[in-house]
């Protein structure tokens, strides 16, 4: 049964069509990656789904509700939660305060400490977010998303900019999360993608050019030519 349905979505910036008539569905329990070269329209698509951007055409449904005209805060309340390509937190607030804001929103203030411990952030709790390492900031953003009690979590390049150790740690955390949560992951690191997902959607020039199981996508000639190259 589907949890997310994207129907003929188009987004233009002037004459440039960033997302061109894109349709797909995500079923409950599925972990999906959206991959593609830079400028393929992956982040724009997520921005349209979560209403950071208004679509020019098309409709989006989540958990049985049409969300095309809803403001982002109402979409979040429905359980569709996202992270950002560039970490998007409250830089002047502490790690605990950032987490508390999410906890307050979802009535989960009692969960803040548990999520901090689960992500191993205890030593950073009272530090201002702007002054903690990027790997920690990424985990804080993930923690705030989890406190929102999502039904689906969209992660925009969760391991981008992380060192090898932080990258492994993030994959470990996401592997656990996918057992209980619908995930959509936008990622360039193919090792991470193949390690985590059940299905891959490949985009190029605003369109979906392939959609299938990781093993099929790996062998897809068009995908190899456009994105995976000699991999």
């Amino acid at each position, binding site marked *: 049964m589907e949890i997310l349905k994207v129907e003929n979505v188009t987004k233009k910036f002037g004459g440039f069509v960033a997302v061109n008539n894109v349709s797909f569905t995500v079923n409950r329990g599925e972990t999906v990656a959206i991959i593609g070269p830079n400028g393929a329209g992956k982040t724009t698509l997520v921005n349209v789904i979560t209403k950071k951007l208004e679509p020019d055409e098309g409709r989006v449904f989540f958990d049985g509700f049409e969300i095309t005209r809803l403001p982002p805060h109402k979409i979040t309340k429905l359980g569709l939660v996202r992270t950002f390509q560039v970490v998007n937190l409250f*830089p*002047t607030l502490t790690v605990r305060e950032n987490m508390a804001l999410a906890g307050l929103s979802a009535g989960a203030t009692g969960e803040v400490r548990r999520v901090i411990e689960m992500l191993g952030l205890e030593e950073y709790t009272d530090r201002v977010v702007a002054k903690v390492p990027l790997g920690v900031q990424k985990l804080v953003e993930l923690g705030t998303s989890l406190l929102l009690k999502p039904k689906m979590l969209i992660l925009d390049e969760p391991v981008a900019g992380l060192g090898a150790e932080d990258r492994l740690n993030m994959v470990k955390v996401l592997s656990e999360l996918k057992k209980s949560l619908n995930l959509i992951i936008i990622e360039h690191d193919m090792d991470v993608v193949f390690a985590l997902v059940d299905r891959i959607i490949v985009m190029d020039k605003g369109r979906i050019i392939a959609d299938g199981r990781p093993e099929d996508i790996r062998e897809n000639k068009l995908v190899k030519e456009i994105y995976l190259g000699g991999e």
Partner: protein
Amino acid sequence: MSLSSRLKGLVNGNTVALLLLIAFLAIIPLTGHRFYMYIATLIMIMGMFAMGYNVLFGYVGLLSFGHGLFFGAGAYSTALFTLKVYSDPLVGVLITVPVALLTSIIVGVLTLKHGKVYFAILTLALSMIFWSALVKLRWLTGGTDGLVGIPKRGVFVDVSGPIVTYYFILAFFAVIMLGLYILNKSRYGLLLRALGANEDRLPFLGYSTFTLRMVALTISGTASALAGSLYAVFYSVVTPDVAYWTFGAEPLIMTLIGGPSYFLGPLIGALIFVPLTTVVARFAEYWMLLLGIALLAVILFFRGGLLGFLESLSRELKLGVYRRWRF
């Protein structure tokens, strides 16, 4: 969380400083010096105005050029109510609260959906419309002469003596300051600071930024209107000057002087600004020039205001004290 741990969370450098200031203000009448009482009263009124202003400016990051509207709405609602409806200063001040709530909602609906620059200009425009109405509606507002003889004696309170007036204003000052402090420490204070830190993030945590801004504007407008109301009780006279945009910019100046990122910043600014404008202005012919130079110095060299300067100094000297004075 238990009551004792909640209370512990509320006690810090800001609370101690605030309580000491209130205690200090409370003993000023004992000196019997009328001029000190006059200056202290103005500090309380303008301090309330600036502290209310900073809920919008320092917490949320919205610059208003129209806060004279709220101050004026408070002053005129108290004046009109006590002169024409019910002659009691306490009821006259309390009636300001619903007036301020209504004013804030109207201003918010008209200004809050258009971005920060337009908010600044729209608040300026609205305050000028309000000021023009005060000047033109002579039959109601007395025009440029304003309203005189605002009663100090009523059914519930009699504040006709200067000392009683002083303590009447001090009581409201204390309540508003403690209210703003509790707000600062509450979850709503955290939300307002988050709005100032990164408003684009909040919708993706499930919060409506419009609603949060409206809450901030309402709190800010109500505190400013109460300051205006007490101003009317203090002077027994109100004129349209209190709603003029230059007067509405004074809390901004006080906030910049004290430090907008600090809870007590605007009040510290009032402690400097009020004596400067009332005492120095008497002796210095070019005091506006001096004020301009002082403002330039603050903005160019002491961006965080006096408290920001003290924080930098404490960091240099490795004292690490003043950071606790931030929101």
